[in-house]
Each structure stands twice: as structure tokens, then as C-alpha cells.
């Protein structure tokens, strides 16, 4: 295969994926309409965050009244609310609520291993992951947040335009097939949502997550798995071949190693959850034979303010 051919095939693949992504977006929008608008918790405000429509429950720049407070030395005379001050003794200063929009970065694993599915009735893992990402993006956009795809595309944007830009970037990222979230520098207090099967050794992933956490952003991790990857429902002598050039494993009697495999898979998930917990992140798992709404609820719950949980 020459280089031109490879490029052409990649381009065709990406075009096909873009079509599929637009289809997915419609599905995702209808899915997200069933959920109430999500108010993302903003307990810490970063200075870099652009002002937006979202009240931060703190005093600050905004249009909505927040509180009156007693005049302190140094306050500008123009800040004094004279009407309120006239009702009682002392001078009161009127403060507005700080309104700002939060930016959420989403990342969806579209590597080759995500194209696995164990049966014709089940969707591939990438399809479920992309659906969930788009549904979450649609949900966030309706809540007034801004969304962006991690590692690709322009700055986070909200509104209808932001959602379309997110879907376009998702289609372009499909060609890259990155198995790990790219180490993009993120602003402080950014929110990050990672969707993948996370079937790699956890060393590299831990370093990558540590980098994100060091930059001050908080995140949520959703592991999307096929039921066959959890249960190993095969029998007999099978040659398992990796989907990303990991080699092959010849198992003479799959039934004999099933218990050990399930144990290993459980340990891996627990290690992943512990890794996320160490960073203060939140972790959930999802199987493709379950409904997408359930996973979306889980994601929404992970992003919701602590008071709503």
C-alpha cells in the first residue's frame, strides 16, 4: 500500500465516519431531550473562564441581584444603593451574582479496539461511546455550557454552533484513532469527561491522568465495555488476536481460564477506579448491552452539582 493509497483510505474512512457522526448526533439529541437541563457544579472559578450566563452563586460581575452588604471603606461611592440605604441606618452596597459559563472537554476513544462487538445485536463500543459523548454535549449545550473535543478543534463553544462544531471534530478525530487521551494543556478548573474501554496497562494512563489533575481540572471517566470482554463467553481452543498489534494468545481451553480472566478484568477495573479516586475524579462503567440512557444518567450525575447528588 503506497502512502497515497493510505491517505486516501483514511480520508474515505473519515468521511464515512462524519456521516455516521451526524446521524449519531440526531440520535443523541433526541436522547438528551429526555433529561432535565444539567447545571454543572462550579465550586471553583478559574480566572480564565469567560463570563457567561451561568450564575456562580457568588458575588461578582453579573446582572442578577445577589446580596446587600454594609459599606466598607474603599468601596466606590457609585456602588452604594441609596434606596436600600435610606430604609435603615448605614450604607449598603448592592452586589450582583457572578455569572460565568463552564467549559467541558470531552474525549472519546475511537481506536481500533473500540470497533469490537461480540454479536450482531450489539453496537460496537465506539458507536456507544460516541453516542454518549454527543448526548452529553447536547445536554451541556442546552444547560448553557461550552463543549469541546479534547485534543482537537478550536476553543470550547456553546449553543447550536458549539454542538455542531463538536460533532465535526469528533468525525475528524476518528481518523487519528488515538488510544489514549492526548496531553493537551487545559485551563484551570476545566471539566474533563473521558470515554474509553481503558484496556491498556494502567501505567501510561495514570501518568496522563496525573498530568490533567496537576493542571487543576476535574474529570469523570466512563469505561465502555462489550459483555464478551467481561464474561469471556467462548469455549474450546481459540487463538485470540489483538486488535492493535498486541500479538496473539492461544488458549487451549477457554472454559478453563474464564474464572481467572474475569478476576483479572475485575482487578483492572478496581485499579482504574482507584486511580481516578486518587486524582479526585469519578469513575463509572458501562456495558454495551445496557441502554444508553442509563449511561447518560450516570454521566449527568457525575457532572451534577454536589448538592443534587
Amino acid at each position, binding site marked *: 500500500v503506497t502512502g497515497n493509497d493510505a491517505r486516501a483510505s483514511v480520508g474515505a474512512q473519515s468521511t464515512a465516519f462524519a456521516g455516521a457522526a451526524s446521524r449519531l448526533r440526531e440520535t443523541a439529541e433526541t436522547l438528551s431531550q429526555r433529561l432535565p437541563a444539567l447545571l454543572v457544579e462550579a465550586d471553583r472559578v478559574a480566572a480564565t473562564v469567560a463570563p457567561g450566563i451561568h450564575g456562580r452563586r457568588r458575588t461578582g460581575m453579573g446582572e442578577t441581584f445577589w446580596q446587600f452588604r454594609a459599606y466598607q471603606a474603599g468601596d466606590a461611592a457609585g456602588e452604594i444603593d441609596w434606596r436600600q440605604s435610606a430604609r435603615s441606618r448605614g450604607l449598603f452596597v448592592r452586589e450582583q451574582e457572578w455569572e460565568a459559563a463552564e467549559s467541558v472537554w470531552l474525549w472519546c476513544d475511537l481506536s481500533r*479496539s473500540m470497533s469490537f462487538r461480540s454479536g450482531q445485536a450489539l453496537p460496537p463500543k465506539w458507536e456507544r461511546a460516541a453516542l454518549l459523548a454527543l448526548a452529553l454535549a447536547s445536554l451541556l449545550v442546552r444547560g448553557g455550557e461550552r463543549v469541546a473535543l479534547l485534543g482537537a478543534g478550536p476553543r470550547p463553544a456553546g449553543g447550536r454552533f458549539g454542538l455542531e462544531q463538536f460533532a465535526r471534530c469528533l468525525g475528524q478525530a476518528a481518523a487519528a484513532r488515538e488510544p489514549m487521551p492526548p496531553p493537551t494543556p487545559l485551563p484551570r478548573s476545566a471539566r474533563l469527561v473521558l470515554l474509553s474501554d481503558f484496556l491498556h496497562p494502567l501505567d501510561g494512563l495514570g501518568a496522563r491522568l496525573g498530568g490533567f489533575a496537576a493542571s487543576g481540572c476535574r474529570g469523570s471517566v466512563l469505561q465502555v465495555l*462489550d459483555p464478551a470482554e467481561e464474561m469471556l463467553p467462548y469455549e474450546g481452543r481459540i487463538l*485470540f488476536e489483538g486488535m492493535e498489534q498486541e500479538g496473539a*494468545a492461544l488458549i487451549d*481451553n477457554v472454559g478453563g481460564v474464564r474464572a481467572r480472566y474475569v478476576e483479572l478484568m475485575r482487578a483492572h477495573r478496581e485499579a482504574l477506579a482507584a486511580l481516578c479516586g486518587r486524582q479526585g475524579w469519578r469513575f463509572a462503567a458501562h456495558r454495551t448491552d445496557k441502554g444508553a440512557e442509563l449511561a447518560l444518567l450516570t454521566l449527568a450525575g457525575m457532572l451534577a452539582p454536589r448538592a443534587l447528588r
Partner: protein
Amino acid sequence: MLDLGLVGFAQPWLLLGLLALPALWLLLRVTPPAPRKVAFPALLFLLGLVSPERTPARTPPWLLILRLALAALLILALAGPVLNPAPRLAGDGPLLLVVDNGWAAAPRWQERLAVARELAQQAEREGREVVLLPTAPPAADTAAPPPAATPAAVALDALGRLGPQPWPADRAAAERAVAALGLDAAVPVWLSDGLAGSREDLAAAGRLAQALRRLGALRVHADPPDDLPAMLRLPDQGAAELTAGVERAPSLPAPRLEVEVRGPGGETWARVPVAFDEAGGKGLARLELPADMRNRVARLELSPAQGVGGVGAPGRALAAARGGAGGRRPRLGRPAAPLRALLHRQGAQPPRRDPRGLGRRPRGRRPLSLLVLPTPAGWSRRSGRSSRPGWRRAASCCASRAEAGRQRRRLRAGAAARGRPDAGRRALLAGAAQARPVRRGRPVRRADRARRGPGQPQVLAEPGPGLAAATLATLEDGTPLITAPSAARAGWSWSTPRRTRPGRPCPSPACSWTCCNASWPSRRAPAARPRGRWSRTRCSTRKAASTTSPAPPSRSRPPTSPPCAPAPTTRPGSTGRCA
């Protein structure tokens, strides 16, 4: 054909397949089938896993040896092994199989056929052609193709169809057929029956042997002289002393043979040992039989069975001489005297042909119950007659129907029927006459009793099922004295006949024939009331229904009517009582 002594192989080149066994060895060692391939993302956890049970990567030696043995046996079986293979046929050219299939070959025909088959199969294995030459001339009405060299499979087929003929072999004709074949070389084999009936026949056999020897080394298969079939000579007619002769090829010691005398039912009446002369060629058996049994001898047979030559049906030959000589005396091995003449030896008079085409009815057989004949051309359904003279005389359908409807009961041995008894039985019949069975107050007339015909009353029937229903008169102790078939009983009862004009169909629903009313009372007596004492309300098929001799055509009465009894009025008290 590869011959290894005990075992031979028909297709030895297939044994080259044994050379492929080492390759098979290598192939069979790779036992486990290729594993199923599954693309799986979570390979990370599978890489370190080892299943506790492992499929062996190599075939166990016993399985390998078993499979190789199986393959070797398959190859050996395909090579067509033959146990104790027959030696190759010596000589070039086709196998010339001369088979004597005359009457003398019949007793051990299956063994001859087995030998012939074996030879033909051997020729098939060697790829030779086979000439099958039966020596007995075929039956006159069959056309046998001239013998020719054919593939062995065709000859095997022909052997299956070949059977012994009831006449002697014609070896002179066989010699001519061998010459007509025009073969230069062949493998001649002669399956001989071992008999030559005359000097000419012996000379012809010698010439045939010479002709065969000219083609190649001659092999002759023949029965040992002790086993050659013997022939039975029927006794002379009319001789005071019945002596059956037995002829056989002379050999010593002579076998123990017996002549069995059989009655009409096939039962053995006597077994008479045969006394042979010093050479063992000719024997005699003196049959001492009472005079009345002598008249009824049905068959003479040699025992142990000697085939068709040892059976004779004397017919009336043993009865008292009625003048004229018997049929031609068959002699051993004479084509002019086929055995059929011996078997169906006729009396002095030429046999009367009957319409059933069965020839003269042999003695001892029972009358026919039913005979089905096709409707002949020119048959007139309305008149029940045919325009063709041969069928007009026949009236066979009526005859057969009459026989079917009027089955006589078998008489008790020694009893007489038909009212014309022997002198020795007269006393008994006289007693019966004195008993005077009464039907409506009228005695049985002597004239009625004297009538002949199957529908007439009989006396002293053999006990059997249905006898009570057929009994007309019994003695006081219950012995059925006079019996008659049901059809005849209808005639014995009073009943008013239906009026049927001549030429009209019979009123009986079971009868599809036109009734002949020649003897109907309404025609004979115009008065309405039947005047006869024994009004016969049946059709006059008396002569046509005769079981012994069918109606000759010269009868004035048309023999066309079946026994169409018009609705017999059976009454409970119709059985007469002896006074």
C-alpha cells in the same frame, strides 16, 4: 491379477497406494485442528493465562497406527483381494464353455452352473471373452442366437438364464457350432452330463471332444459314473405282471433305487426296490398292485430323485388293454423321443381336445372350480354363442360357470354316483332306493337318480363342511344318503319358475347370459302350473357342465346357459326323511 499363493489381487496396481502411507504418516501427525481465531481487544489479560487442560499437540502413537492400518486395509480392499485364487486359464483366446443342458444335466444343475460361473468370473478377471455353447437344442418356439464370443459379464448374464431342457443334448450340432465359430485358439471347457444314449451319440461326443481339443487343452467337468441319473421305463400295458424297468449307465456297485407308486392325490402306495443286473446297467421292479389300484396309478417315480428321467405318468397305460399299442417308447438319449412324450403318455385313442385347452384331463385331478377365458372374437352376447365354430362348440364360459356353481361333493371311497353303480355296489344302492327319499310326498324316481350330471343327487358323500346343507335325504341314523349341490337343490324344490320369454336375459341378477328356455316348463307345458313331478327350474347346462367331458358341439341343445337358478325357495323342511 497378482497371485501370491493364498491371496491374489484383481487390481494389483492399486497396491502402489501403500507407498503413500509415509506421506499419510506425516499428515496424520498434525492432529489438532487449527484453532478458531477471534479478534479480541482485551488481550492484555489473556496473554499470561495458561489453560489447565491442554490438547495434545501430537497424535498418540496408537491412534496414528490405527489410522495407518485403516488406510492400508482400505488400499488392500480396493485392490480386490481374492482368497485362494483360481489358477489362470491355460491357453490363448476366449473361454469356450460347452454346457450340456439336456435332461440328464437337470439333477445337479446348480452345481454345474456354479462351475460355469466360476470359470466365467475367472475369464472376466483375466479379461478374456467367453463363448457360451449349450448343447441341447432350444425349444421349438424360442430362437436362440448363435454362440459368439461375448464379454464375460454378458456370458454371466446368459448363464443365469440358461436352464436344462427336457430332451437330450445334441452334440453333433454342438460340434457344428464349434466349427462355425472359426476360432484358432481358445480355452475349451466342457461341462458334460456324462451320458450318451446311443452309439451315434457316443461318436458325436467323441467328435466334439476332438474338435475342442484342436482349439486348446480340453478340460472336462462331468459327474462321476455312480451319480449319473437313471431312467424309468414304464411297464407294458396289459401285461399280466407289471414290471417297471430302470436303465442307467452301467457301473458297479449299483445304487439302491426304489420305484415309488403314487396315487391320484400324490400319496405313496408302494415302494418297490429295483434289482439291477450284474453290470449294474439295467434293473427291474415288479409292481404288485391290486387290480383296482392298478387302474388308478398316477405316477411312478424313482427314489432317490433322478430328475425328469425318473418320473413316469402311466395314465391309462396300466389299465386293462383297450387295444392298440401305447405311445412310442422313449429311449435314453434319443432326441426323437423327448421326455414330454414320456411324461404325458397318451392312451390308445387320440385325446379329445376340450375347449379349455388343457388336453385330456388327467386322472385323479379334481374338477376345476373356476376357469376364466377371454371373450373370443365373434362372440355374441345375446345368444351366448360365437360365430366361430371352435368357440361355438366350446361354450366354455358356461361350462366353467357351471362347474363353479355345481361343485360335486366328493364321494366316500367305494360309493357310487350317478346311479349306475358297479355290480358290487348295487346292493347298497338298492337299499337307498328302498329308502325312497320323499319330496312332497313323491318318491325319488329311478329315472332322476339315473340321470348323469354334476347337479344330480349323489349318494354317500364324503363328510365335510357344508354337507348338512347339501343333504337331501338321510338314513335314520343320520348318515347323509343323498346329497346334491345347492344349484341342484333348487331344482329339487318346488318353485314356480319365472316366466321368461325365449331370448330374454336371465332374471337372475348374478347371471349376465341369455337364458335358454328350451327346457323351461312354461314352454313345454303351456299350462301355468308346472306339471312335472320334479320341476327343473334351471337351465339345461347339464352336458356343458360335465366335468369329465365337455359338451360336444353336436348337441342340439345350445350349451350356453349358466345355472341360473331363479331365487331358490328354500324351505326349512325341505330335507326329506327316509321312510
